[in-house]
């Protein structure tokens, strides 16, 4: 009898929990299949003479690496710039850029006006290398562990909350593991 009177409450709580989880889902976000995989093989030329190119070998080096896919024509890329700079300033983190389907002069102007947080920038003019990464829009940000495996992908601009709740704890965990 006791349990029976609790049943409607239990059903309500279960339903509320399911709906609550549903609220947090992002159905428009394409799930990535890259997590746990080694970075795809690629070798991109530098954006221009002021920076260096980016190849998969660089991303296999020890330590935590972050790769940000960006373009000067992408407004959210501008929005997340302060957070990228914050990531770059975490000691021991290497931040690399892949410039997606951009025009060299525009990309350079973008970096000149906001600051260039990247240790190297591969120029993906045709967007082909980005497709190998499973990129479907800019910005996207990938975290790579010490063995060259992709451990996290972030779609869209990195907010302050993303930085503190997702990136920083993950980076700490990767470092402890390393």
């Amino acid at each position: 009898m006791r349990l029976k009177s609790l049943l409607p409450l239990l059903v309500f709580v279960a339903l509320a929990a399911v709906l609550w989880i549903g609220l947090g889902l992002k159905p428009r976000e394409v799930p990535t299949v890259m997590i746990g995989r080694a970075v795809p093989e690629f070798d991109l030329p530098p954006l221009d003479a002021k920076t260096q190119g980016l190849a998969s070998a660089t991303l296999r080096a020890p330590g935590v690496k972050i790769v940000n896919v960006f373009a000067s024509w992408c407004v959210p890329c501008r929005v997340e710039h302060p957070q990228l700079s914050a990531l770059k300033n975490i000691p021991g983190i290497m931040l690399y850029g892949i410039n997606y389907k951009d025009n060299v002069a525009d990309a350079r102007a973008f970096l000149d006006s906001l600051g260039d947080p990247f240790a190297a920038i591969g120029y993906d003019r045709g967007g082909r290398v980005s497709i190998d990464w499973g990129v479907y829009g800019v910005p996207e940000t990938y975290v790579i562990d010490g063995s060259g495996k992709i451990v996290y992908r972030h779609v869209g601009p990195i907010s302050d909350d993303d930085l503190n709740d997702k990136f920083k704890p993950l980076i700490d965990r990767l470092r402890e593991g390393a």
Partner: protein
Amino acid sequence: MRRLALILAIVVYPLMALAVGVDEARLSDPALEARARDLMKELRCLVCQNQSIDESDADLAKDLRHIVRERIAAGDSDAAVRRYLVDRYGDWVLLDPPMNARMMVLWLAPLGLVVVAATTLIVVLRRRRREAAAPLTAEEEKRLRAILSATDEEAKRP
């Protein structure tokens, strides 16, 4: 009638080609191009999400169409082309994804809910019928009569 259908086909098909898959470089071999186009119709555009890359105007869809044509021209089978894209974007890129455990959940969950609801309904209805059918004991019968006659008395009062 048949001739009319033929004429219609001749007139309408080129118009359809204008409407979709609007591309630059086509494959010169019409058989290969047709295969590529069929494949494009079953690949999902990652940007628009509810269109195939054949219908989509998005930049990425254009790039993916280019890749499909390139793979087909290189001699890939349809399955190999699909695998190439699934390898990068997952089953998500297929408009008709393969059945796997997660898909089974999606298909079977509504059925499961119907079964649960039907069972509950049957149990409740049975119980209700059983309760209604239970005859009154002699004691209850007596009380019921007393109550009824009391209300009769009350109703008679002006």
